């Protein structure tokens, strides 16, 4: 019995060592070939109306989701949407758990450094969200300097607030930043304009919040693994998709036509 257990344990350990020592797979092939070979483009998203969200039947739709579907069709592969923890997006890409992240992603320096990004396709802004009752007081950038901000950790909003040198607390997501304001634990928060449109005001859990100042303007792009040739392929697709008017038409469906960038 004891010998048997000893043997079993040695076996388990040996497997552990083998896996630890095995060589990394050679990785020179093109990402385009890799995706076409497995027949699916895995797109990392979060629930983010109007870019990526579920319709009543549970299907992923939105300006980004529909374009991702069209891009997959253009590549001749299936599209698969995977809802992820946004903080992990670079690990998701590098470990090949995903092929791209396409979720209203602001093209910051950090994003451009760590991913292969497409051309910008959509405009956005970071806006300050405050309770409706106090909105009158905070209509320009200087008036909000003394507020205690909640921002999403690692988001474009955090960068915007830090650039201004205003005090802020980083929280896990844009929605938790909103919750901070609603709970009164922060005076204001900074989130995406497109998201603010969908999440605050009448008919949501935050009817008493509104957005005022825009801190900056920014652009959305799609992220791929560093060095991936898919980004260039997507730029080609964007050019065609914009030229024949499909991109604008799609944008109208989701009410974002004014933000679309010419390709």
């Amino acid at each position, binding site marked *: 019995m004891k010998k048997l*257990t000893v043997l079993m344990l040695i076996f388990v350990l040996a497997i552990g060592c083998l896996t630890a020592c095995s060589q990394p797979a050679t990785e020179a092939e093109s990402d385009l070939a890799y995706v076409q070979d497995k027949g699916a483009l895995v797109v990392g998203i979060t629930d983010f109306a109007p870019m990526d969200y579920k319709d009543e039947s549970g299907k992923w739709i939105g300006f980004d989701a529909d374009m991702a579907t069209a891009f997959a069709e253009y590549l001749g592969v299936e599209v698969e949407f995977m809802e992820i923890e946004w903080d992990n997006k670079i690990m998701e890409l590098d470990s090949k*758990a995903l092929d791209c992240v396409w979720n209203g992603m602001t093209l910051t320096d950090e994003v451009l450094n760590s991913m292969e990004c497409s051309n910008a396709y959509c405009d956005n802004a970071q806006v300050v969200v405050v309770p409706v009752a106090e909105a009158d007081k905070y209509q320009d950038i200087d008036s909000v300097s003394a507020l205690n901000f909640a921002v999403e950790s690692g988001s474009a909003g955090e960068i915007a607030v830090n650039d201004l040198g205003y005090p802020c607390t980083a929280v896990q997501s844009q929605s938790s930043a909103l919750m901070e304001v609603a709970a009164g634990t922060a005076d204001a928060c900074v989130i995406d304009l497109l998201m603010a449109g*969908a999440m605050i005001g009448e008919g949501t859990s935050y009817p008493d919040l509104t957005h005022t100042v825009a801190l900056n303007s920014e652009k959305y792009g799609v992220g791929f693994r560093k060095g991936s040739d898919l980004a260039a392929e997507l730029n080609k697709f964007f050019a065609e998709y914009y030229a024949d008017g499909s991109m604008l038409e799609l944008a109208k469906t989701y009410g974002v036509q004014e933000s679309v960038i010419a390709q």
Partner: protein
Amino acid sequence: MFQTVMASLNEGFLKTLEIFVLTLLGAFPLGLIICFGSTSQFRLLKYPVKLIVWCVRGTPLMLQLLIIYYGPGLILGNNWWGNGSSGRFTAAIVAFIINYACYFSEIYRGGIEGVPKGQYEAGQVLGMTKSQIFFKVIFLQVIKRIIPPMGNEIITLVKDTSLARVIAVYEIIWSGQAFIKSSGLIWPLFFTGVYYLLFSGILTLLLGRLEKKLEFFRV
């Protein structure tokens, strides 16, 4: 809306239950094997096993989840878990089983070492083999001793399942939180607490019963 939320929370809770049950099924036996390893006389086995137990108990489960799911793809360039949700789920189960098995192994060790030597000697006098002594004489006594600390770990596991969300396994907290983003509803997230409370309540009752059932002998 209420029905949509409940349906989604139920689906998330089902995932939570799956993680819970599969982790226990895997960690109970693996914990015993690790326990034999760490108490072995054979040093080449004993110390590596102790090293593993130290690493697993000494790092956060959240980090282990990230390493186990992303590690193969990042370090070895080969994401053997695959792209889909099933791969994420499998990786989560593997991480949970390894983590909990290490904790269980120490509980088993405490239980085994707490059994008086006389029990082994009595078995030897009766001419039983070592494995007979362990499984027929010692093991039930061990089980009785370890129920309270095991119960503690089991209840902790109920809540630890929520960590699986870092690698996008859609358990109940994820389902609850999804409504904040999609419909601006906060209450579903807090309502998940009711599920956890009810479930751990049921488990507490069951563990209490098990303890009662084993009361027929005193160690």
